[in-house]
């Protein structure tokens, strides 16, 4: 085998979940404390690098988007509109490099949820799963949130259907309810975001919603793997550009035996990976590209991770059994 084939062979046998754990730890430290180390990654970051956290090295794009959309229709063709579009293009540029792996490997809220899941696993409490009907209904929530976070800032400067402009207290509406705002500053021991704002009814409602959602985040993440990711508008926004991503996840339907292993290990519970045998691009809107499915597939070359069109990690029979055997210290004791 030549060098490239050798590398691919080693990659196919690699334990990506373990690698992912370390990458998540590293990026969490980076995003929670990078600002203290003078790292700057800009304000079009496609993940929850919350600026409310003093140590954040950059700014989550959603806040830039909400502030950027706070303009009149007429201003869309002015320099402000241009600034918004260039910001949007930079966001897309950042995003397509890792595609949805921003969610699975880098997002600090995702990492937090994964740690809570590990805690639950250690204790031995079972996880919850959505049945297929609830799954179909609830997955639309993230699109609703995305539409709201685009429409409300626009509605603050313009009038929709002749109604008066929305109260300025609704500025950055998603940030007011986002669990990132309350939780990320905790990394710097800053609890100042855990407040209820009694100024007027709007702020009262929004800040209460924020605290409510923070509470639900923790309980939900404990009961279900990656609970919040199902409702995340960043995920919805990213999915729109997922097709042009550089990192890709594809499936070769003819090799699929429908064993369902991929569905079983999927944290987000995407049945489509197992059931869909016709699509090539298997990244659904909830997918966070953690590649657990590729690890769990025992058929050669059924699921592939590609950079452009070059395979960098494929499901293989050998890799599957190697990782399987690694999981297990019990068999060795009893043999």
């Amino acid at each position, binding site marked *: 085998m030549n060098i490239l084939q050798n590398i691919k062979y080693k990659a196919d046998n690699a334990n990506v979940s373990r690698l992912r754990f370390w990458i998540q730890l590293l990026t969490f430290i980076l995003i929670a404390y990078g*600002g203290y180390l003078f790292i*700057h990654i*800009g*304000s079009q970051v496609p993940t929850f690098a919350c*600026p409310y956290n003093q140590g*954040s*090295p*950059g*700014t989550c794009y959603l806040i*830039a988007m909400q*502030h*950027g959309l*706070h303009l009149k229709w007429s201003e869309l063709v002015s320099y*402000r509109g241009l*600034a918004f579009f260039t*910001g949007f293009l930079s966001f897309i540029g950042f995003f397509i490099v890792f595609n949805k792996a921003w969610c699975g490997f880098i997002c600090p809220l995702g990492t937090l949820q994964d740690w809570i899941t590990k805690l639950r696993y250690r204790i031995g409490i*079972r996880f*919850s799963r959505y049945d297929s009907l609830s799954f179909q209904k609830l997955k639309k929530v993230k699109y609703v949130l995305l539409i709201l976070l685009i429409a409300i800032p626009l509605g603050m400067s313009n009038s929709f259907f002749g109604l008066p402009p929305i109260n300025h*207290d609704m500025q950055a509406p998603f940030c007011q309810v986002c669990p990132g705002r*309350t939780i990320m500053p905790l990394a710097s021991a800053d*609890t*100042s975001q*855990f*407040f*209820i*704002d*009694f*100024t*007027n009814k709007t702020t009262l409602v929004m*800040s*209460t919603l924020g*605290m*409510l959602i*923070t*509470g*639900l985040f*923790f*309980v*939900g993440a404990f*009961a279900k793997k990656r609970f919040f990711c199902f409702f995340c508008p960043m995920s919805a926004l990213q999915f729109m550009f997922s097709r042009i991503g550089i990192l890709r996840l594809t499936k070769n339907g003819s090799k699929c035996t429908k064993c369902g292993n991929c569905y079983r290990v999927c944290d987000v519970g995407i049945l489509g990976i197992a059931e869909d045998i016709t699509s090539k691009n298997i990244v659904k809107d909830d997918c966070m590209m953690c590649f657990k499915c590729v690890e769990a597939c025992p058929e050669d070359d059924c699921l592939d991770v590609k950079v452009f069109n070059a395979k960098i990690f494929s499901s293989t029979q050998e890799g599957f059994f190697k990782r399987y055997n690694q999981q297990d210290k019990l068999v060795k004791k009893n043999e």
Partner: protein
Amino acid sequence: MMLSLQSVAQIWISNSAPKESSLKIAVSGMHKISALRGERGSAKVIQWLRSGSSVEESLFSQADSSASIFLFDPQEQRVAVETKADMNSSAFVFKNTEEGYYNLFYLTEKVCNDTLMVSCASREILNHSCRNGHAKELKYIPYKTFGKDIPMQIVRERNKGDDLHYFVTSGERLTFRALHDGKPIEGVKMTLVSQKGWKNVSYTNLEGVASFELIQDYFTNWNMFDVKKVYNYLLIAEKTLPISGIRNQKSFTQTKYVTTYSEAYLPAKTNYMSLVWGLIVFLVTVIISFIVVYVYRHKRNVFKKHNYEYTSKY
């Protein structure tokens, strides 16, 4: 005409428009600065001249034709400022293109009896917008001194966290320094007047510094407390120095400097943001949702142990 010492002296610059103004004013940005909309291009900042020592009741006054108006941009360069006169008021209008503090001064000098009355109204207007993003770390902006042009200048010493996002809040300790020709002078009588009329008097020390605690000056039911309304405080500094001279063929033996400095402030966050309530809502949510999820899962649990017991033979 001999104007009374009082009314000539206490002129100050205000951000609030007079009620009967015909101009189209909008309050913009996080620092709630009044701006003139319309025409083409970006908005222009507009500030009014008022006289009196009460923040709420001071009258709007016309600018004196002999007065000098100075506007310095954040790079300490002098830039143009337009004076707009309305029915009973005068306003200063300028374009705020640079980011940072603009220093606006309105200076009049008049000889009255034997005294040269130098009255100066000053204000620092902070221009900053987060709209187009900015550097993660906000710079600390020190105050600028203009000893050459302004005989007696009042500067506010910078507090912790004094950067482009800074807003004075009630409950803070404000420290002011009086500078004469750029050098600190002691013994200046400083009066701090809050929005609702509370006054406190202090004298500057050897370094020209006097400090005040800006108290919250009125209390009401929480739902009547307009927390997002911006208040203003007024600092009046007075000092008489034995400087003599001749101005406009009138001689004087002493100079009385009256400088005012006004700025906006917000009520302290603790008035309307409750961390305790936040924590309570959070904990209640966690407990209730935990119980709900637990009961729901318990009911639907297919893995229950007693499901495993088999009673019949087959």
